[in-house]
């Protein structure tokens, strides 16, 4: 296995002021970033630079994050769309939606 590095860009955007002001937002952003960086789909991606726009909002007590690759040319790839839910005491899981 050869190690190399790729750029990863995450642009975060809250859909409501409540989501922006949520106390667990910062922690969730960090956890999702870490999860994404370990995610095999992301790590093994053929795309040279993955740039996600991540929109997040409140759903009950939880924060829901949805990430989209901003480059339309690669929007059909499995790693181009994902969602994640983040709540207190819960492990963050990122679900990829195979470009659907």
């Amino acid at each position, binding site marked *: 296995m050869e190690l190399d590095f790729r750029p*990863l860009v995450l642009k975060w955007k809250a859909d409501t002021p409540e989501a922006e002001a949520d106390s667990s937002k*910062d922690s969730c952003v960090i956890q999702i970033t870490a999860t994404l960086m370990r995610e095999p789909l992301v790590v093994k991606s053929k795309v040279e630079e993955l740039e996600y726009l991540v929109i997040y909002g409140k759903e009950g007590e939880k924060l829901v994050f949805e990430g989209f690759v901003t480059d339309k040319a690669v929007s059909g790839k499995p790693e181009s769309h994902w969602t994640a839910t983040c709540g207190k005491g819960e492990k963050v899981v990122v679900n990829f939606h195979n470009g659907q």
Partner: protein
Amino acid sequence: MSQIMQKIYALFRMNILIFVLLAATVIALFAYQNGLDDIEFLNLSDYPYVIAESDSADGGTSAIALERTDSSIIVDYELREGYAYPYAGVKIFLGDGKTRGKDLSHYDSIFVWVKPRGEGTVRLYMRGYDSAFYRQDDETSLKFNEVEFFPLEETYPAVFVPQEFRVASWWVAQNEINVHKARVDLSNIPLIEIQTGTNAPLGYGTLEIRGLCFKGKKIAKVDLVTILVVIWFVTFFIILIIRFFDYSRERVANKRKQEELEKNLAALQIEKSEYEKSSKEDPLTGCLNRAGFSSILLREQENLSKNGCPVSFVMLDIDHFKDVNDTYGHSVGDEVLVNLTRLIRDKIRNTDALVRWGGEEFVILCSDTPIQNAQFLAEKLRVAIEGATLIKQQQVTCSFGIAEMIPGEDPKKLFERADKALYSAKEGGRNRVVSAMFKRR
């Protein structure tokens, strides 16, 4: 030259004093041995207080006649029966002849020139005054310090030392004196008698007496030694005092020098620390420069290797900074740099190191921080910079490249990675954060 002389003088000052004292002692002893004589000659030919005496005073019948010549006195006598111990001789008065005499105790030898014409011994009495035994107008109460000898036929004198004298035992017995108190004492001799000795043959005889000589030293040996000892003692005492003061003075001088050195050392240390600080800091922004960064990087590398504490590297660059400089001048550019530094400092931890990497490029070394946290911090900084008014002329934004250190990795690789991420951020449109993450093949 004079300084050298002073040093030599300081070195030998005490020793010179001792040498001088030693020389003085030798000279004093030599002078004592070969000079300082105290000689008193009693020439009887012209000494007026001399009278003849015989046993007639004790009830005897001996006859005597005294004749003076130019060089001596001649005593002609005839010892006759009558007194149990017939004698004849002379009395020589010193002082008043009773209570005030001459102190002969300091003489160490007594010379007597007696030339007999006849057989038998001669007695020499040093009659001493002792207040304990003296009876008023009683000449016999003067102590009989005696020595009896056979005089020489030649003209040589008979010589005695004081230790040869004895107190006459018959006198001790007559006066019932405790024998321990009847010691020879020549300190007050008012009368000297020279007589025919014990069992002198009856008949005519002659004593030619030239005189007596007392020889001693002007100073007693014991006094000389005592004086020398005192001088030595005083000298050593003085040396001790001088050395004590010298030592005190040296101690004060040394202390002053030490204080001065300590002050200089403290000043040097302050100077050194200021120099070190200035050598590690960027003068405009007060951030660390690359020199200051290297020691922190080493510390963090070690921390990562030993404890596994993650270290992230945030590299940021001001977007279009050249345009700011070109448009508004370098002073405005400097203002951007200073204000940006202030803003970043407010948002990072004390444990993070902010470094001016060069020009408009900065680096934040985040200790104990994984890449996701560094990315989060960078994003916060990006948003804060975007929303801040660093200068009033225009909005300023920054691009960020993030990388995490790998244990044992060459730092150059880390910088390259972060630089690539920063380049990517710039290429991607600026005002963005790009993380350099692993790519597995």
